[in-house]
């Protein structure tokens, strides 16, 4: 249904809402890359590549999130409804 843009500390709320959206596009940004998305029932998880790499989380998130850059994020935001939890 939309893009869920998640940072800490409000990202946990966004995850709870996204759990009711089978087509959720969950985007982890800034410290949101530390969020545990393992309980997400559906949808797809993306993470901002720069934020993941700066925090050394590449291996931690491997297979759990698709890494994207800002041009891709902007495309997603323009194309879809955004739920902001930053």
């Amino acid at each position: 249904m939309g893009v869920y843009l998640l940072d800490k500390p409000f990202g946990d709320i966004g995850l709870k809402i996204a759990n009711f959206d089978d087509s959720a596009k969950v985007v982890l940004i800034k410290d949101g890359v530390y969020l545990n998305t393992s309980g997400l029932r559906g949808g797809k998880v993306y993470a901002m590549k720069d934020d993941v790499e700066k925090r050394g989380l590449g291996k931690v998130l491997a297979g759990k999130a698709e890494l994207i850059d800002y041009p891709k994020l902007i495309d997603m935001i323009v194309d879809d409804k955004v739920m902001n939890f930053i």
Partner: protein
Amino acid sequence: MAERKLLYHFNRAPHGNIFWTEGMRAATGAVAGIDEHKVDLLFQGDGVYNALKDMEETESLGYLPSLEDAGVHYYVVDEDIKERGVGAGDLKDRFEVIDRAKAAALYMQADMNVDW
């Protein structure tokens, strides 16, 4: 721009910041003017503390009559008040307690949402 359905969601506890007051001010602006948008207010996470009966809200009291006239709904998430040891009886009368599924439905029904 025609009338749109807006969801303003409050995720922060009141005071110590300006989000509560500014959110109420913005909601008042959205229901006024040419477009007269439909607005729902959703309080979740620590935002549920905004709904407490004894929460001092002098700075935003002026917005309440306009929001009431516009039929604005105030929703607070049941799971979040319970997690914080808050009972439904502790809340101001204008707040309606809903579950998380209903909150998610509000996002889906809204044309756009704004966080505070």
